[in-house]
């Protein structure tokens, strides 16, 4: 009996023992080295480098040009500031075998300005900067596109192989194109119409937050598509492709803007030319935008307040010494009063009206004055400027509200499309 049990155990051991081929697969280190070599070659073999479209988690979008070499050096230029368009900054990079293969920009370059926690370096939030990244995990790659994701904050970086025209002058050209795109806001009329595939749309572009919004109707319902964009040497490139009137596109190019004529054009997919036309009245009204604007907990800011007839500092609020801008704060009191404070003397003083806000059934936001000058009592000269502002702010026609970014709103006079203010 004992022998039989013993024999059974032995037979079981023989049959269940390890498969000897278990360790014949590729070893992890071999795979790691292969991946490391593959990405290094991919990055370094592009002669003109890579165009990087960065979408930090903190918002906005930026365009960079990176040229990598095999000595772990990278030459960076970017659209962060006009000063950085001319000179490349040399720093170092390496491919790190982290949990996911990672592209680490491991010494400081223009890219790091967005992550710098010292707000005096390039703005942003103290301790967090612009909530961006400089270490990115490889998510997907092909010969001409690399998708990456920030390890610290999850920002999105897309690298696209630079073509022969995208040389050292790329960022300078991009900056110039961006300045052309900005002129769209110099149109005397706020509302801008385009027709794509026989369907009408209106749109807004907010360059300093890199947001573009398309407005249209679907049946009887107002619809809006918002996308972030980053500029390049042809025009602008969206964070993700967008579909309008059955056409899918990710780039707008060949911007031609003529503000004085309220007209311009751009191309979709480098082919389809779309005419821009400034119009007197909105084609589509977002009746709920006023409520979203008032219900947001954000303190909305506008550096210049009203744009009138294409002039961004139309009310000359800079006559207030050290004027910083206007702040809209909703529900500043428990009774539901809203405030619009003009902040001046580099932030030491503020003054502005208190008012009740009312949104009618057409979505028009109207302000009913409660107090002309709340805050720190202004001097007589300052009061004159405030009254100049109040005359426009309390215009009885009220304002249509359009959402012009992720949490950004434009107020446009309901009867006069030449008067509008953008809050970010």
């Amino acid at each position, binding site marked *: 009996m004992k*022998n039989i049990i*013993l*024999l059974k155990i*032995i037979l079981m*051991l*023989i049959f269940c*023992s390890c498969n*000897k081929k278990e*360790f014949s697969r590729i*070893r992890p*280190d*071999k795979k*790691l*080295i292969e991946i*490391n070599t593959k990405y290094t070659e991919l990055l370094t073999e592009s002669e003109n480098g890579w165009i990087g479209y960065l979408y930090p988690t903190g918002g906005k979008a930026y365009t960079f040009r990176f040229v990598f070499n*095999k*000595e*772990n*050096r990278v030459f960076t230029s970017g659209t962060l500031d006009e000063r950085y368009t001319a000179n490349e900054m*040399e*720093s*170092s990079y*390496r491919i*790190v*075998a982290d949990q996911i293969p990672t592209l*680490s*920009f*491991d*010494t*400081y370059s223009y890219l*790091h300005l967005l*992550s*710098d*926690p*010292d707000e005096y*370096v390039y703005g942003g939030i*103290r*301790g*967090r*900067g612009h*909530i961006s990244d*400089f*270490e990115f995990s490889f998510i997907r790659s092909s010969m001409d596109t690399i998708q990456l994701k920030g*390890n*610290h*904050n999850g920002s999105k970086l897309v690298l696209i192989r630079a073509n022969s025209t995208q040389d050292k002058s790329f960022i300078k050209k991009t900056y110039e194109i961006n300045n052309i795109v900005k002129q769209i806001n110099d149109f005397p009329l706020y509302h801008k119409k385009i027709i794509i595939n026989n369907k009408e749309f209106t749109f807004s572009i907010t360059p300093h937050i890199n947001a573009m919004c398309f407005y249209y109707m679907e049946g009887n319902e107002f619809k809006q598509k918002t996308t972030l964009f980053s500029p390049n040497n042809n025009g602008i490139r969206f964070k993700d492709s967008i579909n309008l009137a059955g056409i899918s596109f990710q780039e707008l190019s060949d911007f031609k803007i003529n503000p004085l004529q309220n007209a311009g054009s751009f191309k979709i997919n480098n082919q389809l030319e779309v005419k821009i036309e400034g119009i007197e009245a909105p084609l589509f009204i977002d009746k709920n935008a006023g409520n979203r604007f008032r219900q947001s907990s954000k303190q909305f800011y506008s550096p210049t307040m009203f744009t009138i007839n294409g002039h961004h500092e139309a009310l000359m609020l800079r006559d207030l010494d050290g004027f910083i801008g206007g702040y809209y704060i909703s529900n500043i009191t428990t009774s539901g009063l809203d405030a619009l404070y003009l902040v001046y003397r580099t932030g030491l003083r503020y003054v502005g009206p208190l008012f009740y806000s009312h949104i009618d059934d057409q979505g028009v936001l109207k302000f009913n004055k409660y107090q002309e000058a709340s805050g720190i009592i202004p001097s007589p000269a300052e009061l004159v400027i405030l009254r100049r502002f109040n005359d426009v702010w309390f215009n009885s026609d009220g304002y249509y509200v359009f959402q012009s970014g992720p949490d950004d709103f434009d107020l446009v006079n309901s009867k006069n499309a030449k008067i509008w203010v953008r809050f970010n």
Partner: protein
Amino acid sequence: MKTLIILLMVLLICFCSCKKDELLPNDPLLDLGGERWKKTKLDEIIYNDFIKPYNIEIKYKWNPYELNLNRTLVPPIENQVYPVLRALKEVWKNPYEKVGGTSFLKKFPLSKFILTGSPEYQSDGSEIVGLAEGGSKIILYRVNDFLIDNRPSVEAMFHTIHHEFAHILHQTIHYPQEWRGISTEWYTPTWFNSPNDVANSQGLITPYAKSSEREDFVETIAFLLIRGQESYDWIKEEYPEVSHIFQLKENIVVKYYKDAFNIDFRELQKEVQTAIYKISN
């Protein structure tokens, strides 16, 4: 029976034993011995001046695992690294070697310096200017703001370095018992609520010296070395009611350096002061 069992065991060993033709893999291991990159001139300076003679690593390339993962920080600008290295040599390494002998830093070494471009902000908005971990690693922040020809900038960075190195010294040979009880009544975890003048009026050289007995000890050393004897004496005169406490602490520090390391603290002070003057002028 016995023979059968032995036979079966032999059979078992034969069937289950390892496959002999399997060789150990000879693929190289990625980053074995540390991460590698093409060495630059800066890397050579670090190797020749710090790694080779002292086994002190100077890490200036970004490595998130050396830092607080919950904070946003950035690596240094490369151009800023060499001035820090130069100052490290002149304001920290040379004075100790001159007064304590060439092997001094080899006996009480730091293992690495981590250079970081930005400050580290706490959630309350305050910032960390330097940090030592395990008595061997020092994190230097604000490297991007370091100005070698600006005395306050040099003082700020090297106060941290001398402070942390003093920790290493007292962790090797403990400070004298006499230090205990001198300022115990003022030690508090909320030291940051005391401005400089309050700390000074209590017989403590800086607000941070109020955080604990050992911080008090190393802050006194760092102050005497970096700000110098004149500044220390000025505080003594400014707060006569606690001048005897400052004097007692100074005496203990001088005696400690002599007894524990056979270092003339006055000489060391002079060397550090001369180096700061030379480097920032």
